[in-house]
Structures are given as C-alpha cells and as structure tokens.
C-alpha cells in the first residue's frame, strides 16, 4: 500500500514538475524574446523552444522518478527487508485457545496440564506464579499438527479464575497481535508454519468479580490489563527455524 502510494505520488510528480516548469519557462521565454525584439538585439543564440525544454525536463524527471520508484520498491517491499526473517506477504498465523470440549476426538484428547503430547517435545518455564508447559512439534509432524502448544497454569486460585491472553508475533518489520480468553490450564495451539520470529505470550488471571469489568467492551487495553490482572505471566519463545545441518 505504501509502495503503491509512493509510486503514484512519484508518477504524479513526474507529470506535474515538467508541466509547472514549462509554464514558468514559457513566461520567461516570452519576456526574453520580447525584450530582445524591443532592444533590436536579434540574431543572437536562439533559446531553447518550450517544447524542447519540456521534452528534456520530462526525460530528466522521468529518469529521476524511475530511480526513485525502483528505490521505493526495494526499500519498502516487505520481501526485500533483510533476510527471510519476517512474515512477508500473506502467511497464516493463528493462535487458538482449546477448552476441553475442543480436544475431544483429537490427538490432544484427555490432556492434563504438564502431560506429554505425542509428536511434541515438552518444555517447562515459570514466570512468577504462572507455569508454562509448552510443546514443540517434532520434525515428522511438522505441517500436520500445530507447531507449538502452550499450557499456562496458575494454581493459586481457590475459585475458578477468568483467563485472558495477549500474544504478539514480532518478526522482521511486521507485528501481529492476537487476544482471547479461556480456562485455567487450557491448551493454546499456535499454528504459524513458516513464521520466523519471536512470540510473546502474556496470560492474565482475573478473579471472578473482575469479570464484568474485563468483559466490558473497550474497557481494558493492553497497558491496563497487566495492572488490573490478579496474576500475570509472560512467555517468550524464539520461533525461528534452526539452520539446516550440513
């Protein structure tokens, strides 16, 4: 979009600049030749005709505009920003909370927090009172099952807490956010084949009496979420693919 707008602006400038300059030149040319005529100073070196002036200006401006457009395309196109370290173009990025009823008749059926999942390698990380169990898919299941599964757990609540999450994919020059809510100990499937960048996954626990406030539309933004949450934890993971071994 930015590239297209830039190109349109440059093309418009390439038309406008010669048009404006030729109008100015016409006024100047007219004054000059009439001055020569009035002074009888004829027979000197002929001046450039307006059409020749326009043609030369147009060629020069077009050449400059072409260089600018080419540079704009290279500078602003997502595919040319560094290496393949961002989600350039359209790439499917999905993060989804999976309550128990979602897991029925799936490879994750019967999952309990901290349990192993077939086809995945299990890891564990703790941030404050929140424990994150996360599962990275093994090579043979790549592209078949979600690439990453996360299960945040917080056991300090006597009552059933409300859980919200904010996720941020941050790779290359783009950023994509996702949000939602689920139950304590629920699985989150992160499906982002081909994505190479960081994932920041925040989980917030609210007591039941905060629920109305949280659910009110537009009441809580990212900044206030963290302040209002009873407990919150952050999970960072690098989702860049390892370099292939020689």
């Amino acid at each position, binding site marked *: 979009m930015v590239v297209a707008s830039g190109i349109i602006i440059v093309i418009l400038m390439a038309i406008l600049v010669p048009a404006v300059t030729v109008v100015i030149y*016409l006024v100047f040319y007219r004054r000059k030749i009439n001055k020569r005529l009035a002074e009888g100073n004829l027979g*000197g070196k002929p001046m450039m005709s307006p059409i020749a002036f*326009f043609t030369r200006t147009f060629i020069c401006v077009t050449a400059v505009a072409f260089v600018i457009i080419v540079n704009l395309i290279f500078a602003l196109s997502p595919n040319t920003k560094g290496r393949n370290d961002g989600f350039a173009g359209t790439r499917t990025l999905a993060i989804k909370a999976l309550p128990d009823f979602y897991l029925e008749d799936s490879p994750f059926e019967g999952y309990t927090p901290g349990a192993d999942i077939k086809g995945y390698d299990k890891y564990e990380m703790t941030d404050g009172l929140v424990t994150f169990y996360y599962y990275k898919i093994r090579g043979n299941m790549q592209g078949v099952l979600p690439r990453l599964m996360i299960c945040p757990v917080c056991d300090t609540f006597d009552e059933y807490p409300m859980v919200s999450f904010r996720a941020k994919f941050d790779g290359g020059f783009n950023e994509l956010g996702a949000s939602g809510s689920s139950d304590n100990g629920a699985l989150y499937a992160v499906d982002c084949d081909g994505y190479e960048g960081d994932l920041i996954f925040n989980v917030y626990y609210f007591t039941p009496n905060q629920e109305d406030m949280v659910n009110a539309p537009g009441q809580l933004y990212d900044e206030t979420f963290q302040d209002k949450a009873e407990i919150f934890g952050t999970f960072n993971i690098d989702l860049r693919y390892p370099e292939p071994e020689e």
Partner: protein
Amino acid sequence: MKIRLMVSEEKYAEIYKQLTAKGFEIDDGADLILSEKNVYVKYLIGRRGEEMFRLDVKNVTHIESFAHDIIAYSGGEEYKLSERLRRLEEILDPKDFIRVSNSAIVAVSHIKSIRPAFTQKFLLTMTDGSKVDVTRTYYYIFKEFLGI
C-alpha cells in the same frame, strides 16, 4: 509591350533607355518583369478599389493571402497585390521580410510583440495591431532568423 523594370538605380537609366529604344514600354503595373539578381523592390504596386498605389515596402507591415487575393497591409490600409506570395518572397529584401506561414509574410521591423505557444507556434502582434500566426513549418526558420 509593357514591362516592369526591377534593377539597381545605377543600371536603371541605361536599361530603360535601351528597352524604350527597342519599343518596350516601362510600366510598374506590368505583369512582365525584368529583374536583376539580388536587387529587391523598394515599392510595391497595390490596388484599392479602382485606384493604384505605390507602396513603400518600409511601411508594409505584412502581406497575407486569402484564397486568390494577396493583401498588403500598409498604414492601416489594405491593398491588393498582383504578385503571388512566392514571388513576393523573392523580390522583397529577406533581411526585412520573412515568410511565417503558407499564407503570410511579415516585416520584421513591424513586429510589435511575440507570444510563444507550447505547440511550436508564435503569435505575432504587428505594429498596426493585427495578429499573424507563425506556423509549425516556419517555426524554426523564424526562430533562427530572429535569433530568439
């Protein structure tokens, strides 16, 4: 036989004498012209109504052709000439007159102002206020001639 003589002043008397001796009648309004190379006319014979006028070329601002008529403009008046534009181009001093289109010759000294157009044309305003176009064909000839 009537003949128009267009020669330099130095030779005029001698040629005049010889031609009249041979029976030729010298007449500025004659269609037959005897001319000397590189000698340009100082007067044109123009007709206005039934009258004939001797026009000093210094006072002629421009000459235009309309269909079969050739009109010279001098002192704010129009005079009908008998010469074709092509012939006038030859007999008028090229230092003073220039062809600016297929239908017009202008006197350089009578150009009051020049308005250039983007489309390789000039619009000339003559000292008598009339407007004459320099067409695309004569654009560069005119530019070179005036050095503008």
